[in-house]
């Protein structure tokens, strides 16, 4: 079993996480200004998370995302927890990204608030308790 015990748990964690990001002024204003949208394709449990300036969608694709990111939920947990470094994750193909690299380079630093907040969100949701 992975660190997420159910799809419901993963959905709750990622919805909260990206909701917090959208409350971050820098993230929200840049995403809106650059018309950025990103869709995470997670596995184990399988779910997609679509984020744009207009909100967060689970298993829905309101329009074609500018950036697509594929990773397992376990790797997502390791990434947001800081145990898996982005350059290593990319080079080992634990995370794969499609879309303009220039946009990705612009986008990734905006995610900092998610790294800061994820451990407490995950702990509160009991992530890893069943692993």
């Amino acid at each position: 079993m992975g660190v997420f015990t159910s799809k419901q748990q993963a959905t709750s964690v990622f919805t909260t996480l990206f909701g917090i990001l959208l409350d971050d002024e820098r993230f929200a204003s840049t995403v809106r200004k650059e018309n950025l949208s990103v869709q995470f394709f997670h596995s184990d449990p399988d779910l997609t998370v679509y984020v744009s300036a207009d909100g967060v969608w689970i298993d829905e694709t309101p329009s074609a995302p500018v950036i697509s990111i594929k990773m397992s939920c376990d790797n997502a947990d390791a990434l947001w927890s800081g145990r898996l470094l982005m350059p290593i994750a990319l080079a080992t193909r634990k995370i794969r990204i499609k879309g303009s690299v220039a946009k990705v380079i612009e986008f990734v630093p905006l995610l900092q608030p998610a790294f800061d907040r994820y451990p407490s969100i995950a702990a509160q949701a009991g992530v890893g308790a069943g692993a």
Partner: protein
Amino acid sequence: MMHMAQLAAPSATDAPTLTTLPAETLALRDTVRAWANERLAPHVRRLDEDDAAAFDWDLVREGHNLGLTRLVVPKQFGGLGQGEFGVAVALEELAAIDAGFALIFGATMLGQAPVLLSGDPRLQARFLPLFCGDEPVLACNAITEDQAGCDLLIPENAQFAQGVMRARREGDHYVLDGSKKFITNGKVATYATVFANMEGHPGATGLTCFVVMLDRPGVTLGDVADKMSYRSCLGTEMHFDHVIVPEENVVGGEGGGVYINVQQMNMARAAVAAISTGVARGALEQAIEWAGKRVQGGMPLRKHQFTARKLAEMSAKVDAARMLYLRAAHLADNEIPAPAYEPAVAKLFADRIAIEVATEAMGLMGARGYLRDHGMEKRLRDALGARIYEGTPEVLALAVTEAIYDDDDDF
């Protein structure tokens, strides 16, 4: 089992061509082409014949003013925000005149790449604006060592690497000891991305990338290599004797160096393929000019069927090389991690045809092709150079076959 998706994707119709370049890239190409023809070309012979340690900062400054030192730096830091596609197109233009000058800027981008790839906003904010001031600033990437070449490039070889530069953590900083060899721009760069192996890890299995300002105490530079060609850019030994580097200068974490290096290579190979394509194009254009005006048997050489056949084959090779590097650059701009197959194939092909085209062009010019006065022999020397750096044909063949047999999914 061979993975068919690797062979099928992407189709030729997906690949951009020079006729579909974005307007911004076309403008960049035309600007660099005009500068290379008008300003760089008159100095090529001097740059080639100068002492090995000579370096033309005035011409580099002109290139800097065009944006060549900050092509890939994001616009928010004052750069041009170009991707691999724009870089490759610009480097072809420079290499059609002088491959060494293309490499000065290419090596700087290689030194910038780990900082860009890190996704670390603090590293980016500290180092990328350096390249966007009034004066030119160059960077270098220090990986190759005396005993360790391919062993630092091929992850499976890392355990066998011998005598690799060492890094040791001491409190809030690291201490680096060791030497690097053949480092392009080492003598003229402001910082280097340096790869060293963490103490306690065998071979290069703990390879870690550091950003090192080259004015740090303990950094010394050796003699400039006296090269066969590419003489306008300088390759140097670099020595690190108890060099202290703050922990915030680590890129990608301890042990992340092998992977960063692989990423860099996959991105850089499209650019080097563009340099080889530029060398081949330069030779082709010179041969076309010669065959159009040289009269033998009562008609220009180009009217002789045998010469026409040669020119046509050379032209086809240059076009094919360009299409391959554009495909690789396009994918490198739209996939992270950068693909391994397309850049390796592009470089493998471009390096080979550059030698073939320059050799044929020299033959067409006869004795004149062999004389320094006409510059063709330099093009042949340039063509031979690119076959060595950023992956020999043997290393590229391993990358290509690894990708062919890879059973990754199609995301």
